[in-house]
């Protein structure tokens, strides 16, 4: 299979990239690792007139803790994230999720920014971004009429490039559809820094390595001084038009002492909030049951890690 014809450019800077997006509005697509976009182009499901390769745009692959958040550059590959010492030592759930995306070759080249911007309804990252209340940073040209004011960073307002920091909750609008504006570039994903008493877990069911998730659940819980759950985030992928936060399950958990019984209730709530469709990966009831079970398992891991990080 061969993609349709397109033009190709490799700008050297983000400013240049944004100018190209404006020039070729409506026909340009950004290319990073290519492991999400190229398969769609080969199937002719996507036929952009121009590919803008971000390879030479530097400064987009950092993995570093700032005062308030963990900053991951959009071009960081799944493997770079997996192997980063700060991820291995502190952000264990990110270490987990970067072991299950695609296969080794995909993880060598696929990037977090590409995956999040692509927003496949069965992709892994969105579930964790939702569970962990991550933010997505987008940059666009200042003064662009297409550019939204919501979330705009006033400190950057005088610069040529404007930045928006969008909460993950509200970002994934529909299948392959996000809150990124057409002339923006996703540059960074921010996870809140891990406080003491917090832990996360990730569980994915797939028929074989590299298949789309039948279902995937990310769970993050934070314990208070008495060992009760003071905050809970559950993100679910593969069982809806778009990955979603299982808010009913979060409500079940919040304020309560963790227990196997409570986790079961949360799992049932997450399953009930899912909107799976029957396909080769299973019927609706089965998928709901899997969401419930994966939720319980992810919560168990999250609890162990929260306690170990008291």
């Amino acid at each position, binding site marked *: 299979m*061969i993609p349709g014809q*397109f033009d190709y450019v490799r700008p050297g800077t983000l400013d240049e990239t944004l100018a190209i997006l404006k020039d070729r509005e409506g026909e340009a697509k950004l290319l990073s690792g*290519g492991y999400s976009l190229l398969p769609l182009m080969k199937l002719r499901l996507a036929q952009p007139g121009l590919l803008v390769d971000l390879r030479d745009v530097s400064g987009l692959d950092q993995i570093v803790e700032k005062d308030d958040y963990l900053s991951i550059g959009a071009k960081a590959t799944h493997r770079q994230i997996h192997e980063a010492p700060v991820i291995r030592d502190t952000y264990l759930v990110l270490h987990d999720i970067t072991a299950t995306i695609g296969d080794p*070759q995909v993880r060598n080249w696929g990037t977090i920014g590409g995956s999040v911007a692509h927003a496949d309804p069965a992709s892994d990252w969105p579930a964790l971004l939702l569970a962990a209340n991550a933010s997505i940073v987008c940059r666009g040209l200042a003064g662009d009429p297409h550019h939204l004011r919501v979330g705009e960073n006033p400190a950057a307002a005088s610069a040529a490039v404007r930045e928006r920091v969008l909460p993950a909750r509200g970002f994934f609008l529909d299948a392959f559809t996000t809150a990124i504006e057409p002339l923006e570039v996703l540059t960074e994903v921010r996870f809140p820094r891990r406080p003491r008493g917090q832990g996360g877990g990730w569980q994915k069911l797939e028929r074989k390595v590299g298949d789309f998730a039948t279902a995937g659940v990310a769970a993050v819980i934070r314990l208070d001084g008495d060992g009760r759950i003071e905050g809970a985030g559950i993100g679910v992928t593969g069982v809806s038009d778009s990955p979603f936060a299982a808010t009913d399950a979060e409500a079940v958990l919040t304020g309560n002492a963790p227990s196997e019984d409570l986790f079961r209730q949360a799992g049932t709530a997450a399953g009930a909030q899912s909107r799976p469709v029957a396909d080769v990966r299973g019927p609706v009831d089965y998928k709901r049951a899997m969401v419930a079970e994966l939720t319980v398992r992810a919560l168990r891991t999250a609890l162990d890690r929260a306690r170990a990080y008291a």
Partner: protein
Amino acid sequence: MTTHITVTVNGEAHQADVEPRLLLVHLLRDTLGLTGTHVGCDTSNCGACTVHVDGESAKSCTMLAVQADGRSIKTIEGMADGATLHPLQQAFWDQHGLQCGFCTPGMIMQAAWLLGENPDPSEEEIRWGISGNLCRCTGYVNIVKAIQQAAADMAAAAETQTGAQPVAAG
């Protein structure tokens, strides 16, 4: 519209004017005549097209030739040293790590990447390491044995080399 690219393949620099839509695997096979890299599923599932790009294993059916511009590619043709097979090639031979042989170039390239990252992998690590490569003959048992043999052979060869150093240092 074509794009001018320079790629180094198995140590040799090549220049080409390519359509942006040309896939790396087609550059290798059709433009450069290196047909050792196979096209299997063509959907980035099977790994038959695995090559190294700047040292990292990649599925060359899911990478554009223009993305390889300025990079260094290694294919199965670059593994043997003249008539001497690479330890992985020898091990696949010794352990009968292939049946029809279609997946073999990709398997060997992925195994070579794996051993570069982890010279002494467990069986489980090998199986995860080649999890992006499918063998439709289901010959995985012997493929895993071959990779284990190559790991041992390469470690022994490395030890022989480093073992000589203390003597030389007196």
